[in-house]
């Protein structure tokens, strides 16, 4: 796709061709779709969540389809940061688009250590800290719920990471606006939301939970109204730029998040259905700008807030 200046942005230091980001966990390390999809269709690609040590992930089944949704319990399977530095980092340049490293730890110290390492990795344009992964039991989840802990965690990472710092929020916390403010105080540059909602499916034939991990994270169109509302609320609570996500599959969906207050949007589950989704959403945004006679998509950010 030709680069359209009406879609380009500088997201707190991430120079993006357009406001579309491949959501973490849904695009591997950026290479799986390479033979078929041009990575430059994306404004940026968020990599699969990484931890210090390699993680084997959860036992199968890891996926269940639900009405208009996908429940996943991957369990942060990843080869660990050392393997990343050695085997993946050298190839990231091939992607031709900014790359966001997504990290998860089991302690503030682990997050800090990961961020300190990534601070020295020029191929990574930004770090996204996942304080909310619902599929790791002793993992991120507890961090995401308490504002004071979030502020401390973000602050610790902020001290060692100088690039654009994204904090990824979930709705597990009762008051997402409070957590958002805590992340802002802690020194985040950008907030991304929402992570998956915790859910489960029971197999009535075996009379057991279907997923190997019992519960999983719900993504896809089913959660979109909840995600738009979360962006609307957080946009009213902080002044940081937001990356909105949750069930986006079309330009109209993306526009809902932008109008609610998101500066950029991420697309996860929809890739599995339509690998060309980034290109198609960009075309849809261009058409919308044409129809509305607008100079730049950023005029739409938060425009529904009246």
């Amino acid at each position, binding site marked *: *796709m030709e680069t359209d200046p009406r879609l380009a942005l500088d997201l707190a230091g991430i120079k993006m061709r357009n406001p579309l980001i491949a959501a973490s*966990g*849904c*695009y*591997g390390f950026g290479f*799986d*779709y390479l*033979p*078929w*999809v*041009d990575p*430059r269709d994306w404004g940026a690609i968020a990599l*699969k969540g990484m931890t210090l040590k390699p993680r*084997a*992930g959860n*036992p*199968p*089944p*890891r*996926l*269940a*389809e*639900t*009405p*208009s*949704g*996908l429940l*996943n319990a*991957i369990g942060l*399977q990843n080869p660990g940061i050392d393997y990343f530095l050695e085997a993946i980092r050298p190839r990231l340049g091939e992607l031709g688009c900014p790359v966001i490293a997504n990290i998860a730890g089991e302690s503030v110290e682990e997050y800090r250590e990961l961020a300190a390492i990534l601070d020295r990795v020029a191929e990574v344009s930004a770090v996204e800290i996942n304080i909310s992964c619902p599929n790791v039991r002793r993992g991120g989840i507890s961090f995401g719920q308490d504002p004071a802990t979030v502020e401390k965690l973000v602050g610790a990472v902020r001290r060692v990471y100088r690039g654009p710092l994204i904090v990824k929020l979930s709705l597990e916390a009762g008051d997402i606006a409070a957590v958002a403010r805590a992340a802002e105080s802690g020194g985040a540059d950008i907030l991304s939301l929402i992570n998956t909602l915790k859910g489960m499916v029971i197999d009535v034939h075996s009379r057991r939970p279907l997923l190997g991990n019992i519960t999983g994270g719900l993504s*896809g*169109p*089913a959660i979109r109204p909840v995600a738009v509302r979360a962006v609307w609320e957080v946009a009213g609570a902080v002044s940081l730029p937001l990356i909105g996500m949750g069930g986006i*599959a079309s330009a109209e969906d993306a526009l809902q998040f932008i109008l609610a207050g998101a500066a950029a949007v991420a697309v996860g*589950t929809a*890739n*599995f*259905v*339509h*690998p*060309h989704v980034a290109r198609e959403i960009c075309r849809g945004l261009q058409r919308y700008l044409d129809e509305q006679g607008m100079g730049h998509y950023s005029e739409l950010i938060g425009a529904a807030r009246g």
Partner: protein
Amino acid sequence: MERKAEIAHRCLLLDKSEIARGWHLFELEAPLLACAEPGQFVHLRTGCSSDPLLRRPISIHYADAAAGRIRLLVQVSGRGTALLARSSPGEELDLLGPFGRGFPFLDEAAPALFVAGGIGMAPLFFAAAQRQRAGLPFEFILGGRSSAFLPPEEYFLDHGFAPLTATEDGSRGLRGLATALLEKRLAEANRPGRIHACGPMPMLTRVVELARAAGVPLHLSLESRMACGVGACLGCAVPVKVQGNIEYRRVCRDGPVFDGEAVCIGN
């Protein structure tokens, strides 16, 4: 901008017929998929709404590269496949692919043995037809519930071979399981050079036991629920043995065909 390989295909459905109870044969115009290899699959949209949301993996059952056509053989087993079964010739289907790594060594001279349980015959048929065309020796063992739930014998004869069949009710071939046929076959002196199997888990478990006991190399096509189909989501992982350790591998990208030694089946 560099030219990318095709991933998304809208393919015209040329013909559809029910060749066994609940098994629908689709013939599609798909020039860019007709070069696929046996064991590879396509990832198919079954409707146009977000429910069901995900695509369904379906093996390429036959590909005619010259005619630019492929066949899929779909057994109705749930909502997605039922929706597929309702499509009619003249419609377009939405396919991604071809994905996955197929059956290896299909061009070797040593005789191959294919063991298919039920709809597991879909990809093995393609592999067998390829050896048939190349004039390479093979045998085909087919198991099923009952004759009505299997394609008619002519379906195979049209492609130049006749499977050795077992049915649970004895309505065609041996009364019993495909693995009983395999056991008998492996008891003979002239062992096959390699076994390729696809079918339900209990069958595969027994095939693994028998092949290991006989010391015959084995390749299995595994199933798993999939989301992306390309290796990006890690959703379809199955445990495999890698240098003594158990690690998860992706059915969609590292498989669907795995080495019989590596799979965590029948220990």
